[in-house]
């Protein structure tokens, strides 16, 4: 228990003293996961809406696959990312292994199934009269889509939040694809693992607490922003 208290003290100390390693890792965690969630949102909301509003053969299989993919362990995505991006892998030419963009790529794969599935569910759940009314009022395809999105905004906000929470705290991808390189690909979660391995427990607890603090702050900001949109 003493360790946790020491961790809280250490966290406050690290934040006040502006330890460059902490700020670097915190900023990278935020940047990498926001970029990944941003890309995954553009792709995922489109795919999710499409799946909810269109019929084609094999659709239920696609939906099931996306839902199943929500449970893929991050370490597996990390391993796949490594195999793809390694110098000898099919995408080795991009030289993205052990870079932040490599982590972004892996986290897009992590976030995409979540956003697709939750968007699909949210739009599927809308009152059937909404699309009918939109069609009746002569809304064109783009207008119909924006209506669905606006009506399902709570579901979509939750989808984005869930994806963000998963990406922001994940460890497997950052470790495998990022390699935990100091000042290059080290994130708050890989820092926590490293400090634990080094036996610097208060520092490890502090890193996790900072991670938690930022996660809560960002959740509050997103929730607040999506509420403002309602007015």
């Amino acid at each position, binding site marked *: 228990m003493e360790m946790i208290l020491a961790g809280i003290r250490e966290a406050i100390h690290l934040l006040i003293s502006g330890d460059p390693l902490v700020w670097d890792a915190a900023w990278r965690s935020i940047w990498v996961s926001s970029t990944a969630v941003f890309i995954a949102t553009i792709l995922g909301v489109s795919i999710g809406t499409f799946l909810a509003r269109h019929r084609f053969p094999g659709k239920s299989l696609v939906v099931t696959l996306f839902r199943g993919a929500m449970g893929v362990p991050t370490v597996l995505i990390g391993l796949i990312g490594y195999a793809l991006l390694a110098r000898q892998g099919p995408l080795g030419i991009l030289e993205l292994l052990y870079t932040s*963009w490599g982590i972004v790529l892996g986290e897009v794969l992590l976030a995409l199934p979540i956003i697709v599935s939750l968007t699909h569910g949210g739009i599927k759940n809308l009152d059937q009269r*909404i699309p009918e009314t939109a069609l009746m009022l002569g*809304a064109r395809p*783009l207008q119909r889509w924006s209506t669905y999105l606006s009506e399902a905004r709570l579901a979509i906000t939750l989808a984005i939040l869930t994806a963000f929470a998963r990406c922001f705290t994940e460890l497997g991808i950052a470790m495998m694809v990022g390699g935990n390189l100091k000042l290059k690909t080290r994130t708050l979660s890989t820092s926590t693992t490293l400090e634990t*391995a080094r036996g610097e427990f208060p520092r490890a607890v502090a890193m996790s607490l900072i991670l938690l603090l930022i996660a809560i702050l960002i959740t509050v900001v997103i929730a607040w922003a999506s509420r403002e949109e309602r007015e």
Partner: protein
Amino acid sequence: MMHLKLDAKQERTASAIGSIRQHMQTTNMLKKMLLFGGLTTVCLCLVACSKQPDLPSKSLRIATTTSTRDSGLLDELLSVFIQDTPCDISVIAVGTGAALKLGEQGEADLLIVHAPNSEQQFMSAKHGLRHAPFMKNEFIILGPSADPVNIRQLSPGEALQQIAAENHSFISRGDDSGTHKRELELWEDVKQHPDFEAYHESGQGMGNTLIIANQLQAYTLSDMATYLRFRDKIDLVPLVTNGSSLENRYSVITVNPAKNDKINSETARQFFTFLTSSKAAEIIADYQLHETALFTPLVTPQTP
């Protein structure tokens, strides 16, 4: 005044109609937003592409054992090396087994490892170009200070036999690291299979393994540098510390550049030369924790 009572569904539809009207007016804005989103994505991709050329071509990728990184020695050596040879260095800290794998696959340019037998195999398979031991310390067998099965005074092999015979808990790394390889060699030397009931594999790094062994008051094999880092956090004490079979030799290997054209063999050669120089030897000899030198250089340090 007419009073209309709407049920929840009608209300919802009414609000939807309102929002559809509103949206039809704001379609232009939405188009702009989508355009903006698309453009941002394109920009991000462009940044991603433009970022890559300056990254690995001049960068040196080192795969190292965790003990050299965790001890802080590698950072010290690198900071001196970079002063003379400015370059971008990435350090990937993994177990020796994983480091050799990275070398074999051509994913790293230079390796720092400590498993002489595996290194020999690596070199004879032509995976490496240059190989040189450059520093050493000792492995130690740690255990509870009460030493329940009396291994003090024993040789490393006898100590392990004793632990197995008494079926006392022993925590193995079990992660194919240099320390794990050595432990298996020690068992093999005394023709003992580590398959007794109280033998456990943690599958984790040395630090975590020490913590587990400490909680279970078990015996374990550790390298000196990691033990010194954890000395104040655990109650286990070194019980067997002598014997040539406990020597822990660290070597540097440059990866064979024939593996692929991305291997930075020039900087790897420079760092190899640096590590085996008397200048590096002096830094290694001076690197202390708790007033104990963590490593002994194998090259004579330069005299100031």
